[in-house]
């Protein structure tokens, strides 16, 4: 399962998982003298839901930031779609089709839900400043096309009723959903979710899980997510990477990971040397 082969496989619930789309090779990330990530390698396959889990401070968010190009690791290589990725600005990574959500929600609070989601389409808008200002020709056409696309996502995530509501007035669970909508609006090939269920109640978690599964199913989006909640991760993911103190201590299907002694120790607590 964990070899580097490019063969596709079929999951228990009948989804076909493709070959490797992204590969992390021996990544090490340091902040000054602190090693956040030590020599970690894993891959993400096309169409799968890949989770990165671990206790607090394990380096999960740093890992996600490496994938999104926000951090450039001191050692190791990131391979994307069969090519080695040079150090990049986050917007360049976005242009390659990688979109993300944030742990602490980074939406424009004063703007409506609709406008926030529209910002996710920025990559698809090419009309010039003048055309935009005059609202003729290309700009108008583009806006209509993009709005139609955004409306599909609004419908998909069932947020029609808050379409015109400023984001600042929304409860937490809905903000998370709006953030997911904005990431989806970019039509990403890989979607990175940073703790999508953090701070949610059981019902909101169930809703979010359903949306994540539906996104994966409907759009075939590859999803990499970081999560605290073990139960949710085990139900959602196809494969799980477990990190502890910046190191990878497990990698495999949820059932493999669950029976891994190192993982059990990390979660239940064993004295570290």
């Amino acid at each position, binding site marked *: 399962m964990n070899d580097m082969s490019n063969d596709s496989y079929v999951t228990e*619930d009948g989804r076909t998982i493709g070959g490797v789309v992204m590969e992390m090779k021996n990544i090490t990330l340091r902040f000054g003298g602190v090693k956040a990530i030590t020599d970690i390698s894993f891959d993400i396959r096309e169409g799968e839901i890949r989770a990165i889990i671990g206790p607090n401070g394990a380096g999960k968010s740093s890992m996600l930031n490496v994938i999104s190009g926000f951090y450039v690791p001191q050692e190791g290589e990131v391979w994307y779609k069969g090519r080695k990725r040079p150090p990049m600005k986050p917007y360049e990574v976005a242009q390659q089709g990688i979109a993300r959500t944030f742990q602490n929600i980074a939406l424009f609070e004063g703007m409506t839900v609709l406008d926030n989601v529209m910002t996710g389409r920025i990559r698809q808008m090419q009309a010039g400043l003048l055309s935009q200002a005059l609202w003729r020709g290309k700009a108008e056409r583009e806006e209509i096309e993009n709005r139609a696309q955004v409306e599909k996502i609004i419908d998909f995530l069932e947020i029609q009723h808050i*379409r015109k509501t400023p984001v600042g007035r929304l409860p937490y669970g809905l903000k998370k959903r709006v953030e997911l909508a904005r990431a989806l609006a970019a039509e990403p090939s890989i979607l990175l979710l940073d703790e999508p269920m953090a701070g949610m109640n059981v019902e909101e978690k169930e809703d979010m899980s359903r949306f994540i599964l539906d996104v994966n199913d409907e759009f075939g989006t590859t999803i990499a997510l970081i999560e605290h909640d073990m139960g949710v991760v085990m139900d959602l993911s196809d494969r799980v990477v477990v990190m502890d103190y910046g190191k990878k201590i497990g990698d495999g299907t949820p059932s493999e990971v669950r029976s891994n002694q190192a993982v059990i120790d990390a979660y239940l607590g064993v004295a570290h040397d």
Partner: protein
Amino acid sequence: MAQSSQAAGGLMSIPALLQRNATLFADKDAYREKEFGIWQRWTWAETEKEIEALALGFINLGVSEGDFIAIIGRNRPHFYWSMVAAQSVGAVPVPVYQDSASEEMEYILAHCGAKYAVVEDQEQVDKIIDIQEHLHQFEHMIYVDPRGLRKYDHHALHRFTDIQEQGRASYYEWIEDLKGRREKLDYDSTCVMLYTSGTTGKPKGVVLSNRNVVESAKNSSEFDNLRQEEEILSYLPMAWVGDFIFSIGQAYWCGFCVNCPESAETMMTDLREIGPTYFFAPPRVFETQLTNVMIRMEDAGKFKRRMFLHFLEFAKKVGGRILDGKPVSLGERLKYGLGNLLVYGPLKDTLGYGRIRVGYTAGEAIGPEIFDFYRSLGINLKQLYGQTEATVFITAQPDGEVRADTVGVPSPDVELRITEEGRIYYRSPGVFVEYYKNPESTADTKDAEGWVDTGDAGFIEEGSGHLRIIDRAKDVGKMADGSMFAPKYVENKLKFYPDILEVVLFGNGRDRCVAFINIDLSAVGNWAERNNIAYASYQELAGHPRVLDTIQEHVEAVNKSVAEDPMLSGCQIHRFVVLHKELDADDGELTRTRKVRRAIIADKFNDIVEALYDGSDKISTETEVTYEDGRKGSIKATLDIRDAKVVQVASKVAAE
């Protein structure tokens, strides 16, 4: 028969009306639905094509005449089309409440032996798959929204658009069959079967013929002078007879446009965008809107608030009279005009009532203050009284004769009879054919001459000829001292307070009355916020001493007003408890149309009822609750029991 068919111009079925509309109103909108943020529209000509394609698809799938097709979903054009398509092929549509739990659905589908179901989405598909092994006759399921369903086994599961596509592809194979089946439909063929939720026992399938539906639609449309230009918003459950009559019966008779909201949550926004001219809502909707308006006005600036209150006060005096065409002085008219410019007009627009010509409320009694509020704004809100077995209409209020405490005069072609005990019977062309597979109940309800027992008690008012309803006849009882016990009368008085959502009165056969009360979370929650009262849950808020104080004031005020009625003075509330949970249809405490099921509540909360009578001031209880997904849990609570002051009627009379 010959006479009535002539009356309806030879149009003896809904599919026949569709054919007429497709020619007569070809370019006029028949359906609109907000989807992807835009109002999508279908003209009558397009609608006819959509329904034809679906009907051909049904035949292609193997639907035979007389088959039952369950329709399960929220108000969408697709489901209205499904009903008419089912009728076109000679099948019987059976709309089912989409929030029914699996067991309820299983009962209905098994009872009518439905072979097919048209459902909305994955949720409904899953529900039916769960119960499918108990439904031996069930064959195919058709869904509208494909999300999440791609990997399901599609041997007996079809997408709505695919069925239409197959219908179009097999046009020449089946079109003659379709025409033949359509032409066979007459006044006696079944139009629809609707299951009544019933406050007791299992649901019953009410069979309505084309005669019932077309005649009722015709009569009621003429009564209110409904035209082709009307706009309605369809948001009430499709399984309810009212929606069937408004959105199909009257819509097809008059040819007006049915607008479907984007989702249940956007209903208020969609209402404002459409601005219906003909509107129907249960009292609850009007109450909620009024509460919202008042809450928002609390937050408005001082000047605006004073202006609002001033003109509202003025409208109460004048508005209703203007609407009824009674004499009003010129000065008052001018001031009302100014009020319309500054307050009433903008308010009506905000509510989405700017264009209403005819509005109805029914199902439950409406609070007089709420009723008068809307009428004073110039909204022609009226009351009607009806039931599924009558194809809705029994009585209705004509324009100019509208009052909060009556339900109007008999609708056209309806005969009323009231027995000595006050039980109401009626006979009309709308009287249902039968309860499906239940001849005993049919015989109990409908006699050989066609008179139907409403089960309600009431009387015709002297002078006006309007009907007044007292209560469900079976709920009206006697107290231990022989005086009349009419729970609904007292409950409604209490429910007119915005902070009280539901009341259940007990006292039949007892020496005094006690009550359960449910607070209205939005109203009480808002009050708590403004008064800096912190609460963590519904339960905590419901048990807050200051909330109990307020409720007690309401109860005592109601006792005073009940005491004024010599017949019902025995129904004053001696003790009450504010319940720790909201009464819910999922727990079987209410029907799906939110009517209280007394027997079930009395049984389930027996310990609390006993505590109300035995004089204890606290009761600890544990209650089982059902979550939306069908799982069960339980909540524990210790409830305070309060004593309320009652008016001693006998001594009061002596004092005077």
